[in-house]
């Protein structure tokens, strides 16, 4: 490093960003003061709409067209960015400060090979021959952990997995040797084990290259494990900016305390109901679901001989990463998919062989809460109609009676009664999830499948949803199948856990048992990839990285 260490790489002085059209709304960013030192990893954490991504875009001078910096200045190595000429500004982007964005597959040009895309970026910043640039691209791809980089450089983005694409985007950000990398929720949407590998790699590479990182995230676990300092953002301001260890131990602000509290697991305080447990409510044995593969004659065993029991008013969590077959099981249970073999006994009755007409009356008792809240609600229906649809289909009630039930349900999921007249797009993600639950619960089912109820929610909203589910479980004596990859939420919600990998259950047992003493290597790997916030004493990478000693 040729810099004098005391000069910050990036300095932001009282930055304020506002809409160009005058409104009474508060500014999008205000009073942002920040210094990024060499060799530092700074975490920026906050909920949706806190202004984290906007901050990254402001640094790169790529704000949305209707927003402007109205106050303050950003300095890159003490050079004010507002004085840069357009050509210098272009060279600055990617040359000095590079961006790693969310959802890597969309960040890559779909019709150009990944190698050429790296070459494109490199040659935008350095005068290198095409051949030399290609060689650099290939070697960097190998360094970010892409196996067989020489061949993979010729691959198109659609041929890569999400984790691979993210590595390519990281390589793209590093190829022109910037001083600072902005990682904006870089691992969002990746499986936990992949996410940890990618983050470990990112930290290791940037350390080696002497690059400082601003790690923007909504996940306190990532902050706790990877960042030296953390800035907490809320509605366009930085609430506090501190050393990570201090922050975790004693957050200054009320808001920070709330966030940390919400991210912690809640122990299960309730006892199991005894007595009824002798006959299980749901009994699945040897369930198999086969999908046709990509090539003719090929088949994929998405669910491969799965068996489990769920006693009345107990919750089983089905955990596993994407593609493990857990959602397929849920869809087979509510007959959205027809299973290929195996038995499903619900309350003693075999349901896989029932005709749709004979199964319909049972739908009242078996309900499902769908994963993505917005797309699982018909966008053109009011909440009132969305919630009472099961009643209209399955019961004969007058509309006044239905409306009464709807209001009752909305109250149960903690939504005001006036929400009955709203459309889904008028609700926040958390409220949409609640509507989805109200809809599933209105027919007073005995058994409910929750498909990923906590994904894609902000920290506090997620905690609220978890609390709500816990309460519903105890109030309504629900039996539930809880499908998730969020291990932390399992701690708060499930009595028993089944760990799935490639269509099979690799380990099953009581929650405490499985989490405390995992036997199967896959379960161990999953638990190692979990970035908890308890008992952290400084940036250290993931447990998996520590155990292996090196990354990749």
């Amino acid at each position: 490093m040729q810099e004098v260490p005391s000069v910050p790489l990036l300095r932001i002085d009282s930055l304020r960003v506002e809409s160009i059209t005058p409104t009474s709304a508060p500014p999008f960013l205000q009073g942002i003061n920040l210094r990024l030192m060499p060799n530092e990893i700074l975490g920026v954490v906050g909920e949706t709409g806190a202004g984290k991504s906007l901050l990254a875009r402001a640094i790169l001078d790529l704000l949305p067209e209707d927003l402007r910096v109205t106050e303050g200045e950003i300095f890159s190595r003490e050079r004010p960015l507002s004085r840069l000429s357009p050509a210098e500004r272009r060279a600055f982007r990617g040359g000095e400060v590079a961006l790693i964005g969310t959802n890597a597959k969309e960040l890559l040009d779909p019709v150009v090979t990944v190698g050429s895309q790296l070459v494109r970026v490199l040659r935008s910043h350095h005068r290198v021959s095409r051949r030399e640039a290609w060689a650099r691209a290939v070697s960097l791809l190998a360094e970010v952990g892409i196996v067989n980089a020489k061949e993979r450089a010729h691959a198109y983005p659609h041929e890569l997995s999400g984790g691979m694409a993210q590595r390519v985007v990281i390589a793209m950000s590093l190829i022109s040797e910037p001083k600072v990398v902005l990682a904006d929720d870089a691992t969002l949407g990746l499986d936990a084990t992949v996410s940890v590998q990618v983050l470990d790699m990112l930290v290791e590479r940037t350390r080696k290259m002497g690059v400082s990182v601003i790690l923007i995230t909504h996940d306190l676990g990532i902050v706790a494990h990877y960042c030296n300092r953390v800035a907490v953002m809320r509605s366009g301001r930085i609430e506090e900016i501190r050393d990570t260890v201090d922050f975790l131990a004693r957050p200054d602000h009320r808001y920070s305390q709330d966030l940390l509290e919400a991210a912690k697991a809640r122990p299960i305080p309730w006892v199991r109901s005894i007595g009824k447990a002798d006959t299980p409510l749901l009994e699945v044995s040897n369930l198999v679901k086969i999908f046709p593969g990509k090539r003719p004659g090929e088949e994929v065993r998405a669910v491969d001989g799965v068996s489990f029991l769920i006693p009345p008013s107990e919750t089983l969590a089905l955990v596993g990463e994407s593609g493990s077959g857990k959602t397929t099981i849920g869809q087979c249970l509510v007959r959205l998919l027809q299973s290929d073999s195996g038995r499903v006994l619900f309350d003693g009755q075999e349901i896989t062989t029932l005709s749709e007409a004979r199964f319909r009356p049972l739908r009242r008792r078996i309900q499902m809460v769908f994963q993505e809240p917005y797309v699982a609600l018909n966008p053109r229906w009011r909440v009132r109609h969305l919630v009472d649809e099961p009643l209209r289909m399955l019961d004969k009630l007058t509309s006044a009676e239905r409306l009464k039930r709807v209001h009752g349900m909305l109250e149960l999921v903690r939504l005001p009664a006036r929400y009955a007249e709203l459309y889904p797009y008028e609700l926040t993600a958390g409220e949409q999830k609640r509507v989805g639950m109200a809809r599933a619960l209105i027919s007073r089912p005995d058994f409910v499948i929750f498909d990923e109820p906590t994904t894609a929610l902000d920290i506090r909203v997620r905690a609220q949803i978890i609390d709500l589910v816990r309460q519903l479980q105890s109030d309504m004596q629900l039996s539930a199948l809880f499908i998730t990859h969020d291990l932390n939420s399992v701690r708060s919600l499930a009595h028993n856990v089944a760990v799935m990998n490639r269509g099979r259950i690799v380990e099953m047992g009581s929650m405490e048992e499985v989490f405390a003493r995992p036997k199967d290597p896959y379960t161990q790997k999953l638990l190692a990839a979990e970035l908890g916030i308890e008992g952290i004493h400084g940036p250290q990478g993931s447990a998996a990285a520590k155990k292996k000693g090196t990354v990749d």
Partner: protein
Amino acid sequence: MSRIPHSLRSPAAVIGFALLFLQILLILFAPLLSPYSPVEADALASLQPPSAAHWFGTDITGMDVFSRVIYATRINLLISVVSVAVAFLIGVPLGLFIGYYKGIVSSLVMRLFDFIQAFPIFVLGMALVAVMGQEIWNVAIVLAILFTPVFARLIRAEVLSLRERPFVAAARCSGASDLHIMFGHLLLNALLPAMVQVSISIGMAILLTAGLSFIGAGVRMPVPEWGLMVSSGAQQMILGVWWVSLFPGLAIVFSVLCFALLGDVIRDLLDPTKTRRAVSTSTDIIPGIGGPL
């Protein structure tokens, strides 16, 4: 603020609705508004340039162009609106069924549409009218035949993507039947792009009707029809007589423009993503709205 949506107050919407209103006026009050009979020839007044007596001049047979332009609104809009309405009423349910049920019948219907649409639309229309006989109603029937696949395909494409959406699976879990899913869930969502297409299709139908009449494959003289009127002035245009063709042509332009503008307005009005974006940007920056707990 008034309750009128923003998209209805844009200049495009104002012009579109004004033109529509004007056309409705012309249709309803044609006899009151036109100074002469639209079909009465006056050999003494042949090819008179625009004047106080004949605002738009007269054509070669001495018919008043102004009166004919007004009366033609009736014929042209009648043919276009009726044909598109018929195509819509047949095409929408058809598209719903062939989108929802994947079977031999559905793919046969799709192949049939492929064949119909392999022909350039104007060429096929011309041939059909020529074969069926050149009458007003035949033109409308032909246009209905040509537009039915357009609506059916549009609805089918919508249904194909909609039926994979989780809210359909959610409805099935609530015990909804196929019919309920088709008409309760899918139709409503698929219909809105079709509404935009209705407006655009009416404009296209006006152009096609006029084009057919222009080459002599549509309605016949002396019926007042815009395309036919342009055609009747075509020979004189080269000689410098511009008014016979100019005014009916302008009428076509404004009429089609009206429906194109209204199509845009409907698109803006009914696009839920636009509304959603507007709402979410306003709530995302307000802290603590994540839930009322």
